[in-house]
């Protein structure tokens, strides 16, 4: 039975990111026991949010040194805490998790299973399932080291719900600093202010492709507003500057699995499909009847999006009135 250390990720607003709940689900699915480590400036206040999830302990390292997400500052403390009897260190495979986890693995001499989509205990050994080749195959793997590090896909491990109880909070000390951290200076975070849900958490996503051109926001925003949806984009739309890079959905962008996904003016390249094939219901609007996106769409509409999307907004208003 594994004793798992879940690493919580803090958002700039001082709260625990919702994505952390996927790593908690991983820990529950793996069986055994788990604790949660919250690190960051203001971690103490944030920790109170996650005492109701069944962790043996919520460990807290609250330090101004951890104010910004510079993983060279986080890795030493994570590794030091991990050495207190933990078998598996788990993060959610967010950009922060993917940045941090291998550094921790290297510190611990641990094997690392990246971006896993499932876990099973087979006779006391954890078997991890992970997508390869843009999700066109799944590999089952085991790690040959006693201590193991994993990152769990947010789209495959649904957010954990509270389970009651109240885990005790315990302070942990900041570990000795790494010299490497002294060579990283945080200059700033450019983030577009958005009232929309995060792509990883949204129940509905409206994604647009190259076809939208400069009208990307003009056409998609009314639909997204109407549905309370997050907005996503194809690589081509991001590369062309129609949409910001952080909206990219796909193999090399965000991997999402909402209840409802709209692919609008997106052809359905392998790399895009890899990031949204897991969605429950997929709608595609494309003027090319042979576009590959239709092969994964539950509902396909062959139409000019510049007519179809405004009409869709009008019809949805009627239908939900």
């Amino acid at each position: 039975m594994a004793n798992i250390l879940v690493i919580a990720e803090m958002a700039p607003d001082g709260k625990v990111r919702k994505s952390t709940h996927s790593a908690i689900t991983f820990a529950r699915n793996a069986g055994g026991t788990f604790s949660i480590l919250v690190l960051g400036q203001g971690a103490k206040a944030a920790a109170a949010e996650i005492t109701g999830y069944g962790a043996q302990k919520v460990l807290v390292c609250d330090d101004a040194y951890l104010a910004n997400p510079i993983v060279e500052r986080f890795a030493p403390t994570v590794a030091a805490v991990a050495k207190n009897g933990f078998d598996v260190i788990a993060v959610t495979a967010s950009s922060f998790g993917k940045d941090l986890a291998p550094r921790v693995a290297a510190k611990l001499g641990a094997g690392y299973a990246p971006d896993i989509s499932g876990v099973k205990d087979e006779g006391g050994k954890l078997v991890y399932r992970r997508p390869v080749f843009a999700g066109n195959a799944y590999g089952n793997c085991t790690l040959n080291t006693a201590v193991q590090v994993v990152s769990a896909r947010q789209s495959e491990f649904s957010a954990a719900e509270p389970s009651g109880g109240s885990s005790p909070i315990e302070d942990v000390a900041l570990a000795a600093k790494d010299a490497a951290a002294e060579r990283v200076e945080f200059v700033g975070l450019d983030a577009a202010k958005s009232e929309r849900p995060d792509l990883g958490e949204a129940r509905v996503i409206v994604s647009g492709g190259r076809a939208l051109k400069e009208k990307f926001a003009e056409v998609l925003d009314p639909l997204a507003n109407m549905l309370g949806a997050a907005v996503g984009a194809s690589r081509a739309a991001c590369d062309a500057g129609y949409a910001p890079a952080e909206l990219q959905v796909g193999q090399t962008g965000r991997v999402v699995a909402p209840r409802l996904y709209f692919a609008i003016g997106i052809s359905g390249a392998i790399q895009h499909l890899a990031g949204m094939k897991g969605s429950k219901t997929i709608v595609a609007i494309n003027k090319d009847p042979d576009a590959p996106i239709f092969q994964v769409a539950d509902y396909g509409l062959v139409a000019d999006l510049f007519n179809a999307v405004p009409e869709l907004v009008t019809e949805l208003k009627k239908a939900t009135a």
Partner: protein
Amino acid sequence: MKILVPLKRVADPDNANKVKVNAGKIETTGLEWKPNPFDEYAVETALRLTENGANPKARLGEVVVVTFGPKETESTLRQALATGADKAIRIDATDDQLDGDVVARALKALVEKEKPDVVLAGKQAVDGDSNQVGQLLAEYLGWPQATFAGSIKSEDDKSLLVGREVDGGTINVRVGLPAVVSVDLRIVAPTSVSSKHSPAHKYPEGVRFAALMAIMAAKKKPLTEMKLADLVSDAALKITYTGFELPPARKAGIKVASVPELVEKLKSEAKVL
């Protein structure tokens, strides 16, 4: 500036849906080998950082490319040499002898021999999709890392200003050299890479292609071979794949004839509104 670029070949990523699984093993037979796109971007980035954009022939540094793979991966290295890299190293290995950890440990030993100022890797190999080698290497070396670089500005040859593409935005960091940087897609946009040697130069979008002359000349550039054992005494893998399988197929959908029909289906059939 001296830059080391680890370069992996992958089975044609635009046809990744043609991979087969046979007796629990992945087969990529019939798929052409291509350089991992992120690694091509890393080579392009390295070239931009070591040249004067206005005069691409004048090299202001050295770019060394390295791959782990069998003999035939030398053609991937030759391609990189033809686009402008200065020398190449092949570390003899087959895919099943490697995991990200062995690659990182071997790269550490190579870095200690070659002494680059920067290791520029891809953010992920698009076959294994692991996204780990750069970070592992940085920790093994005790170097800082700037992953997912969408822009790089070389200010003074002692540090890089890197725009990192993260969930929800861009984090700008300044890393002191030597450092490991892993590149993201937008790094090959026209003005993503700049250095004090070529301020405000605008490059064509994407990676450069080799001219025929350069392909011939690349045959004379140095390409050396090493054994994995020359770099790591312990080549044990930390990860074991026990089997592969294909993903479950998605059930076929339907085409709707109109927007009202679509809304009706979403409401009463899919029940997602």
